[in-house]
């Protein structure tokens, strides 16, 4: 067994165990910490595939910023006591959840089968990326040339979300000292 095989087995095991912990832990903060573990092992898997930029961004954005914010909000709401009063949900909701689960798994298996059957047709092979100056350079150049419009649209979407959040949270303070 090679080193990368061992690393793959370790990271994927941690990811699966972590995801189960996210669901089964009764304390919200503990669930959040388990999710951090999942993100971390995902980034390990990306790094194993040679996608160093995605691995770094995964940790930087998801683990380092978004999850910190999650934990911050959970702590601020003081939800650190275990949730025990979970009501038994109705059969209808269970059915919908089950159907959604089955559908998702089918789509994933279908996608995996289709991708593994095809020969790699894209022009960005490992050697080609190396020639062009590495992962980071190739992705940034694509992002700022071919996909610039979509990229800028995304930033507008985020700006809209920020403005909407401020508008919603400020409206409640009318008359008061803000």
């Amino acid at each position, binding site marked *: 067994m090679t080193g990368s095989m061992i690393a793959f087995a370790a990271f994927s095991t941690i990811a699966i165990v972590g995801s189960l912990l996210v669901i089964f832990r009764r304390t919200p*903060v*503990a669930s959040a*910490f388990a999710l*951090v573990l999942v993100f*971390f092992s995902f*980034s390990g898997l990306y790094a194993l595939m040679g996608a*160093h*930029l995605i*691995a*770094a*961004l995964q*940790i*930087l954005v998801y*683990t*380092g*910023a978004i999850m*910190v*914010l999650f*934990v*911050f909000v959970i*702590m*601020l709401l003081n939800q*650190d006591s275990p949730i025990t009063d979970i009501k038994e949900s109705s059969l209808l909701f269970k059915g919908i959840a089950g159907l959604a689960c089955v559908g998702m798994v089918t789509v994933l298996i279908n996608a995996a089968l289709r991708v593994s059957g095809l020969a790699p047709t894209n022009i960005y092979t490992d050697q080609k990326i190396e020639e062009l100056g*590495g*992962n*980071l350079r190739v992705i940034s150049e694509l992002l700022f040339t071919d996909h610039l419009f979509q990229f800028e649209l995304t930033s507008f979407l985020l700006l809209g979300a920020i403005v909407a959040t401020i508008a919603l949270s400020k409206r409640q303070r009318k008359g008061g000292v803000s």
Partner: protein
Amino acid sequence: MSFETAFMFGKIAIVLMGLLAVVPIMLFVERRGSALIQNRLGPNRMGPFGLFQAACDVLKFIFKEDRAPDHVNKYYWHIAPWIAVIPSFMTFAVIPFAGTYTDANGHLQFQIANLDVGILYCFSIASLGVYGIIMAGWASNNKYSLLGSLRSAAQMISYELSLGLSIVGLAMIFQSVKLGEITAQQGEVLWTIAGIEIPKWGVFLQPLGFVLFVVSVFAETNRLPFDLPEGESELIAGYHLEYGAMRFALFMMAEFINMAVASALICTLFFGGWQLLPGMDWVVGHLDALGILPSGGALVLCQALSFVTKIAIWMWIFVWVRWSIPRFRFDQLMNLGWKVMFPLALLNVLITGVLIYMGVL
């Protein structure tokens, strides 16, 4: 074992040993340095100038009883110090500590991992360290500790923005985020003023970016004036209130090693990294003339020495600032982060872009 593997293990061992050696040295420098600044004596009884005080402190930490309070969340309370300390060691992996050594057998790189993403790796691993603090404060099950972690979470997110944006200008000028390439390019001469050669260091190219980076790094390492998560006069000891003995020492280790890594990053990005200090080429010439080391060995040695010297100067500045500037109030901290640092970082990117477009840089 092949030579490459042995060399890799050697590099890792050197970096780990170097970072571990930082802890007792900084213990001494911080205590005696604070005494010097505040016109006190400081610990001066053990050995000459109190040099053995650090060893005594370490022994005390090791042999002190390691007890966990009853009310803590045992599992998270136990792993939190390790989560704080491990990322601080990992961050150093992409920082080059000497130039490439070339001989008949090929190249030797004095950098543990030459990653494509370079500085982004540093930032992402450094951002994991905050979980140690958050976890410690939360698992301690106590108001002051929880407040400490809340402050830490808010502070980290606010200053990571300006930290990341402050080096965008630098990456634009050097056309790379690989620390090895950035350092190599800083060896060129920028201007010659009255016969004195000014090197192409980041600090001369990006003065505003440099100031923003240093301030953000101080905030990220939780050092005064940004040590609100600890805030001993407000929160007793903040997130590490319930920790004693070696577990507390681990948090202290994490802080000192973070300081070392932060200094190394400041040197690499803005002060030429392993590029020789003025006057060092004279030493290299004389060492080469002696002929003890293989050719080029003296250069690598002096480069590593220059790098360590630069780090040491920045470590002293960290101590100096800590004992000179008082702590921020929390609202001042947030205002500085979001209303001053963030817009200035964006302005820096804009100015750099315009200057590059005009062909000045």
